């Protein structure tokens, strides 16, 4: 069980339990947290983040309801094996949300659709190639 890397802003508008949920959900979707991996205990996480333990249990409870996490009696919480179709749906939803700001800005600035799409593709390619570069470095 690894410690969860979370960044909580108590004055950040979103309730803390939502911040915890969003960040764990993201880590599960990006593979930072693997299926079968055990989640840090409520006590440990709330002590470390210095937030109310009820806040953490609430976040965990909702993640269980969403099916991203499962409770094993007497042991703790584990990352679930998420079905491929629901994984894809969730990933697309998250990506769409992340697009929101960029899309609004593009429309406001009057950037045509094809140009905005080209910029996005370029950006993707850049990230992709630097990712591949890293993989190559690791192999050598």
């Amino acid at each position: 069980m690894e410690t969860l890397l979370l960044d909580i802003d108590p004055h950040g508008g979103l309730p803390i339990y939502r911040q915890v949920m969003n960040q764990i959900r993201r880590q599960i979707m990006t593979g930072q947290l693997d299926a079968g991996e055990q989640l840090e205990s409520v006590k440990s996480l709330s002590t470390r983040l210095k937030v109310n333990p009820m806040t953490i249990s609430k976040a965990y409870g909702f993640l269980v309801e969403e099916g991203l996490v499962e409770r094993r009696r007497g042991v703790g919480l584990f990352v679930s094996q998420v079905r491929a179709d629901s994984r894809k749906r969730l990933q697309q939803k998250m990506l769409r949300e992340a697009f929101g700001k960029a899309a609004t800005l593009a429309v406001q600035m009057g950037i045509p659709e094809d140009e905005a799409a080209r910029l996005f593709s370029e950006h993707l390619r850049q990230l992709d190639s630097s990712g591949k570069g890293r993989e190559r470095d690791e192999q050598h």
Partner: protein
Amino acid sequence: MSNIEPIIRVENLSKSFDQVQALKGVNLTIHPGRIVGLVGANGGGKSTLLRTAVGLYLPDGGSCTTFGQEAGKLRPEDLARIGYVHQEGELVDWMTVDQMVRYVAAYYPGWNGELEERYRSRFEVDGHRRVGVLSPGERQKLAILLAIGFEPELLILDEPAAALDPIARQRFLDLLLDIIQDAGRTILISSHILSDIEKIIDHVLILDRGTILRDAGFDELREEFSKVRLTSLNGPLPETLPFEGLLACERSGAEALLTLRALNRSDMETAADSMRCTLELLPLSFEEIYRLIIEGNRSEEAELEP
């Protein structure tokens, strides 16, 4: 939750001092395992309520029950389960800090020496100094130590952090989170420094001019209010915005900043989509939410007046 006996039950409680009504028919229950924040303006009745809960004041009307006992008749064994810190800590000025701690510890068989040591090193409490020469912040630290050292089930804190410097305040809040980790502990904390307590409380009571304005889970309260930036994608925003529960609106051309109440995210998004607008959620602090509740109540009252 309802089948668990509350730690404190207050029913229709009223209390006056020389013609001034400090509490006007207050009802509330405090459930175990929570950190409850009691907030409100000075003079709003917070201290009166807390003092009544530990039996220092007796109700004029209604009742206050703590640990199942009438608060005015708490027995020594009940009081031994309550730690209470208030602004005018009753400390003995001629004693040294060490003497004062030993004096209080002697009353409690359950005094936790290990917790005391940890606290003293964390808060740099110097045992050799005389209580009478301590600064307000140092007195506060000592009062807190005396209230937590015997590990009470119920900790009542009346503006405990007011005299502490920012670092000591942060350490103090961390300490409360340590304390609540043990099952069966309950903390009731009053404060006017809302940014301090918003990180730790899970329930909030807003007391205003002697009455409870809100008694709610903290997350529910947070989600009830939202602040958003609305951006029109084609030209200026329409004259009227189709949002229910609009509390405040600043607008200029194609953009508007809205403060809303009791509207969920998807309803807001539907409304924004219908007018070709995008919506961005902005942070709203507890202090702003508190102000919205107080002001909302004031304007409701003004409407009711003939």
